[in-house]
């Protein structure tokens, strides 16, 4: 699905000592499966995710998504890709504070009809949010419930790629494994890219990419790692 060639991302381009967030590497990602990207802070894992999801443009190199180079896409095409084919779970969940859990999910729906709220409720329900929580605003939800709402929002368009940046950071162990199980289930049909510090949550990942200083230090593949 993704073919990455010599991807480079340099911050502080104008300075003499350039910071390489991505130092130029190649990588291929499959059409489906749970891919974990792991590494310490500043290793470039979030930058890689943002480049893959078109939110950032790499300084150099190519990212091909289904054979199309992302850098050549027009703004509208990039927006359409983000809206229709990609789903996002951000580190800080970025829920809209004045909307209910259901509305926070439906707001991301590419198409809206009378069934959309039902779909959102079904998703929330699958993620373990009971009907009592559907009408609540984010401030009335627990950290875990917010994260699940954010995941439901990411899934509402049934995206081909789901990007999750530290999806379990705010959760306790039990909730974290619950969320990972959902992502693992979703990864049966789609590609799920999870960025994390935490090795333990990636035990069910199909592959793990370890990053260090903007480079890939190791790639581990296997049904269970």
């Amino acid at each position: 699905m993704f073919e990455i060639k010599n991807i480079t991302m340099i911050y502080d381009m104008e300075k003499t000592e350039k910071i390489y967030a991505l130092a130029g590497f190649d990588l291929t990602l499959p059409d489906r499966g749970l891919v974990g990207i792991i590494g310490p802070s500043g290793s470039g894992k979030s930058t890689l995710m943002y480049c893959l999801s078109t939110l950032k443009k790499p300084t150099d190199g190519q990212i091909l998504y289904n054979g199309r180079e992302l850098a050549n896409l027009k703004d509208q095409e990039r927006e359409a890709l983000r809206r229709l084919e990609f789903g996002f779970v951000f580190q800080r969940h970025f829920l809209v504070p004045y909307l209910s859990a259901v509305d926070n999910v439906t707001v991301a729906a590419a198409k809206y009809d009378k069934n959309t709220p039902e779909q959102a409720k079904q998703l929330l329900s699958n993620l373990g949010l009971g009907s009592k929580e559907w009408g609540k605003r984010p401030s009335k939800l627990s950290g875990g419930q917010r994260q699940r709402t954010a995941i439901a929002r990411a899934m509402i368009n049934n995206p081909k790629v789901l990007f999750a940046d530290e999806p379990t950071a705010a959760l306790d162990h039990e909730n974290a494994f619950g969320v990972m199980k959902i992502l693992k289930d979703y990864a049966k049909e789609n590609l799920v890219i999870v960025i994390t510090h935490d090795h333990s949550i990636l035990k069910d990942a199909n592959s793990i990419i370890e990053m260090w200083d903007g480079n890939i230090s190791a790639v581990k593949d296997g049904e269970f790692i």
Partner: protein
Amino acid sequence: MTQKLSAVRYIKNNKRRCAVLIVSLGLCFVMTYLTQFLLSTTEESFRPILLENTKKLQFIQIAGSSYGLDVDNTNQEEFNRLWNEKNHELAKKLETHRGIKKAYNAQILWAVIAPAVGNMTYEIPLVEKEEIPVILEHFGAVLSEGRLPENPGEIVLDGATMKNQGFTLNHYFDETNYGKNFKIVGIIDCSSYFGCGIPSDNNRQSSRIIVLSEDIQDISSHLKQEGIEVRENYDSIVDYSWGEEFFYNEITAVLGTSSSYIYVGIIILLSVSLLIVYTMYLRDRRNEWCLYYSIGYSKTTIYFSIIRELLFNFTAALLIGIVLIVAAQWILYAVMIEPQGLKCKYIHWKTIGQILCTYMLIFGILQIPVQYALFKIRTIDAMEDELYS
């Protein structure tokens, strides 16, 4: 159906914030309009006195010197006799003019009308008993209460003046200025402020010539035909051309200037306060829009959702404003305008136009913070970069 960002979601979930915008916009609409409405009581109350009465009745006061009388070398009694003679002569001559129905030598009383702003006096002719029905008929006035004047010092007055000045039937007219010389014995119905009566026994000096005419606009031209050149500083003429000039130059223009100042003040106050409040509101929503942009909504889509919200607020403000204005006008009419015998105008197209222009101007001004907010929209990654930089 492709989803657009709904303005309703924000409005429904942020009623208080929207209400602040709607109410402040609506109240400014109400304030602007009601200011004009209250000022209209002055204009509309003075209009019939200056533009209607003067078409039917003209008052002429010619100084002795304008008749050629020697003011300095004639004793007062003789002067008065000669002056009265000249007035009688002139009245007789004027009666022969086309368009002039009657001309009397008569006294006058001054009645006052006091609306919300300013006040105006108008003349009440005092004539012989038998002339009163003639004048009333000429004026289109009918007796609605009491009786017609029959004795010296009795007058009839229109209901609006009675209310405005707090006069009551069978009581004395303007005791402060005229003592107990004039008594109101009847109330008349007519479209303007008007009254007439019989002179008091205490003063039979007729100082004015009163002309009952059919739409004479400029009585000076008739006087000129009789060899009298009206001198501005000596002679006094109350006719339509004087009334028209006074109304448009002294009333409409002055009130227009005052309402313009009020209007500009309201616009400045409203624009500045809305700009501040709205900028704060927009700033609070930055994360929301950055999220929308990150998940694939274009800035254009976000812009149109903001515009739809604004349009809703403006429309709601207009509708609420209209309801409040209708209610306020009804209340003001019931408690202030009608009890004071004043006249008013409900629909002010010019003010409505001004308000709509103001709304468009403010809508335009609010595009500045909107455009700035759009400019500040980043994707989530950029926000996180900002957060940690």
